[in-house]
């Protein structure tokens, strides 16, 4: 039964982590939204043509640069990135949990999942 208790501890930590990620990211998105709509709410949207990488939303460096200039769109994008990072943070916490339980098999499995996601960063650039 001791294992079960340890499991439940991790579950509570993970639950709080996920909630915090959602709250923090949506707060940042709301702040960005107000600035964005204030700055360009009267302009006309155009999403018919796919711009792909012709803008500055696809790299962390560009996003942070935009945030430092108080660009509403880049602040929203920062919030979106934190949201994407939330499940990844969850995996890191799970690894800590499995280390505490000394469950070697699941330490390996969880690391494997983490590597696949981190590997997708490399694939994303090369694709």
């Amino acid at each position, binding site marked *: 039964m001791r294992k079960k208790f340890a499991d439940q501890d991790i579950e509570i930590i993970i639950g709080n982590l996920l909630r915090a990620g*959602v709250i923090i990211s949506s707060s940042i998105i709301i702040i960005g939204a107000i600035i964005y709509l204030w700055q360009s709410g009267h302009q006309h949207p155009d*999403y018919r043509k796919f711009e792909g990488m012709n803008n500055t939303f696809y790299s962390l460096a560009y996003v942070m640069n935009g945030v430092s200039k108080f660009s509403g769109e880049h602040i929203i994008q920062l919030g*979106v990135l934190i*949201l994407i990072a939330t*499940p990844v943070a969850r995996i890191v916490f799970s690894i800590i949990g499995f280390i505490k339980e000394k469950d070697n098999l699941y330490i390996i499995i969880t690391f494997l999942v983490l590597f696949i996601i981190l590997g997708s960063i490399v*694939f994303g650039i090369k694709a």
Partner: protein
Amino acid sequence: MTILFFTLIIFLGSILAGLLGSLTGLGGGVVIIPMLTLMLGVDIRYAIGTSIVAVIATSSGAASAYVKEGFTNIRLGMFLEIATTLGAVGGAIAAVYAPTNAIAIIFGCILIISAFLSLKKKPSYIQHTESSRLAKFFKLGSSFPEKNGTEVFYTVRHVTGGFLMMSFAGILSGLLGIGSGALKVLAMDNIMRVPFKVSTTTSNFMIGVTAAASAVIYFQRGYIDPGLCMPVTLGVLLGAFAGSKILTKSETKSLRYVFAIVICLLAAEMIYNGLTNRI
């Protein structure tokens, strides 16, 4: 149409999508993509990128409440995430190269299958038989608390079949920007014979991680646009939160049928537009 008005329309539509998604268990992503492409003429690649972000938001929001109830089987989820994340990475890379009308057609077909799956009666298996050798090795059997406080123990079967089905669910998630929760539940319910409560919560738990794997690729390819993600993410979160507060399961039966029909119509239009090269 100004950006202010455009944002407001998407925001309201997304609240509805989140609400219906949480009441019917189909998730918000299945309505977001048709809404953006068919109604507002948004390029399907932007729609996919936006949808995957909405999927992460709703999954994380719901999972934070689920994990505390003790139904989620974290080991089972983590083990199957190997399959879903590998599939998602492959699917997202395929999405970069696949023609957009082919994606629209596949999306329409998956939409129809998901709608049917959502109407099917859900059997709840509780296996007390001996676990298979693989299930024992990976410690997949577990237990959950019953209302009266007793622990119900269950075992897991057909690990290889479940794993393969999960890889497929991952590929579709990466290719189409959806959570493919219906397929995940199918793999766990019908193949692995996991109790229904466990499969639903564990599947939801896995969706966020799977979506994050493909979202990283979408982000780097410019699929994720802040002007679209902002109203969709906030709207879907609000809708899903409201949905979790309003109704109980028994009252949603007729709603499920209405929603399934709406989804089939949207799917037909996506397939038609794909076939006629309008998307």
